[in-house]
């Protein structure tokens, strides 16, 4: 009974976390139809941008939070979208190589200025105690992760389903040329999608920094998580991404509590592998964004 409680609680906790990590990647996959291999750098910009503003420039926490979002928008438009994505949209090999390269450059830069021994710490803990849910204890900070995941997903769904620009985004994700012919300014919508894509990972990193790894190569594992969830969800389908996040959360918590925590990573990889073999379109069809 205790194990079942643990599995249920951690399915929600981990599922929410995976959702925040993967949502932006999935959005880019759905709208622009590309694999943003520079997505790993987004996490670094969030954490180390925040640290730079706090420790090097010396602004206060709230200014730093606003500043890091501005930094993210500048980074994603000024370094990822305009110089690379827009230019190499039709040249996949150049696009992927350039995005990966940017990610590695960011990692090296961070490693130079703020190596792991620099003691980077983001003071964004709202809670620092544990929360008892039945027989299970979780860091109370994880509750913020769950709330953030729900709110951001709700915002994305509302924005995509109910707003005019949301219609345009969905139209582009389904029929690019038709949308263009109907007067949708595709590049502007792409740029907006790029901006939207960095919001969930930035919020995610700010919330989990007090209980998560902060190191220059942290982007790799987070990118891997985003890719796995997105593939499982159906390459760019946000509904699929939500479902995939909680399925991965269920697998992780079931293996950890009923089996061996050592096998969590392998179990997730195997499930995604078999989904790719037997249901390559993923859980949801990828023709639509939602």
């Amino acid at each position, binding site marked *: 009974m*205790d194990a079942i409680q*643990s599995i249920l609680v*951690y399915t929600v*906790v*981990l599922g929410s976390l995976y959702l925040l990590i993967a949502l932006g990647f999935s959005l880019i996959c759905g709208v622009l139809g590309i694999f943003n291999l520079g997505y790993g750098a987004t996490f670094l910009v969030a954490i180390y941008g925040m640290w730079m503003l706090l420790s090097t420039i010396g602004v206060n926490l709230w200014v730093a939070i606003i500043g890091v979002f501005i930094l993210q928008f500048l980074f994603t438009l000024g370094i990822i979208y305009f110089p690379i994505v827009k230019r190499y949209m039709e040249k996949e090999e150049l696009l992927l190589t350039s995005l990966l390269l940017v990610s590695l450059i960011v990692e090296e830069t961070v490693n130079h200025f703020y*190596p*792991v*021994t*620099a*003691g*980077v*710490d*983001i*003071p964004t*803990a709202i809670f*620092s*105690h*544990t929360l008892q849910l039945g027989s*299970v*204890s*979780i*860091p*109370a*900070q994880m509750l913020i992760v769950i709330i953030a995941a729900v709110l951001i997903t709700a915002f994305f769904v509302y924005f995509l389903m109910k707003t005019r620009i949301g219609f345009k985004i969905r139209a582009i994700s389904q029929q690019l040329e038709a949308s263009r012919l109907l007067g949708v300014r595709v590049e502007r919508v792409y740029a907006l999608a790029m901006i939207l894509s960095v919001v969930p990972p930035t919020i995610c990193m700010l919330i989990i920094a*007090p*209980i*998560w*790894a*902060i*190191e220059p190569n942290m982007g790799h*594992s987070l990118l891997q998580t985003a890719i796995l969830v997105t593939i499982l969800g159906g390459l760019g389908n946000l509904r699929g991404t939500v479902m995939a996040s909680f399925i991965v959360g269920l697998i*992780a*918590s079931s293996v*950890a*509590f009923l089996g*061996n*925590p*050592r096998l*969590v*990573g392998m179990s997730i990889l195997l499930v995604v592998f078999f989904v790719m073999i037997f249901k390559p379109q993923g859980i949801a069809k990828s023709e639509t964004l939602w």
Partner: protein
Amino acid sequence: MKREILKSGGFFSIVTILIIFTFFLCGTVGESIAKEPIKIGLIGALSTPYGASNKAALDISIEEINAAGGIMGRPVELITEDWKREVPLAVAAYKKLVLNDKCLLVFTEGTEGSTACAQVASRLYPSQPHLMFAFWTAHEGFTDLVADDYDKYKFIFRVYPSTADTYNSDLGFIEFFKDTIGAKKLALLIEDIGWTEVYRKGRPGVFPTQREYFEKNGIEVVYYGITDIKEKMFLPIFEKVAASGADSIYWITGYTDTVTLVKQWAQSPAKNMDLVFQSGACSYAAFWNMTGEQALGITATWPEILIPYTKESKTFLEKLRAKKAGFLASSYGAYDGPWILKGAIEKAGGADDVEKLIKAIETGEFQRGFWVWAFDKRHEPKKGHPYHPTVLGQFQENGDYILVHPKVLVDLTNPDREYVRVKELRKRAGQ
């Protein structure tokens, strides 16, 4: 005229001058030979904090030797090679350092790098005798080379802790758990990687597994786990550990992300259990900041704490910090290593006969910045005070990194402080 010069003894004067001049020339040559530098090689992963720290420690050591007149009047020169943690590069670097640069001593790094270099070195040794000091090489099997085939590997010495130290009764590791912590029920976790093999599998007839070892010594292992070095989500593990009834956790880490681990431990149901690490980033004093000050109560081996063995201990640490290099488990051997060589050369009466140098190291005792270095038959450092210890430090209030083991060094370093159980520390901190 010529005859007159000869008659007046001029001939003898010229011969005398020539003889003196010849002696002078020989003396000059002799002096220039005497001033030929003694070369020390370092094969390090120089772009990593470990490699950079080892190089900085060697630089400091050699600068001090040269400032004190070198070794028997000969200056010491350090030649560094970067192996980028790639074994073929380490092997190539070793050949270069011994054959081209004529290094008398080569420091090697890492179990895989050192083991590969030992094979190359054994082939080079007959034609180019030299010494090899290995650090960042914890695998206890490394020094079996010397034990199994002394003639082939007698030039190898380890200047670094060994995984076997845990089993060494002179180091009192088990007593730390039993007496200092008061552990009765232990959660034992071991990261799944090569260097921890002896802890997971033991060595038949030599060492038990860590689990067996603790249980034989009266500490019940109520939770046992093998963990992935890439793990980032430790909360389910702590959930299970807390449910196991353990009162303490011993996590054998080296490559595991201990920063994340501690952040999650501090907000898990296991947060009141004592947590001891073997190796990893937790050894740094900066670990306190890296974890957002959540490392209260964490204990780790080889902490970045100044232990004032000699007057040079402090100056070395100050110089190391001035070079912005970390103080690591390998810093001791890196700093003291060249001084061991100096002592051996002086004992042997010169650097020409490497066999004599080996005997001098085998039979001598050497001390500079830290403990007394003496080597056993396997060319392992002798263990237990005043020789090579195993030291443990604990993060206490305000991030003070306090030495908590062994007692003799605690008395030397922070006599008014001792180990405090995590629960008590949290209570004091109002957590």
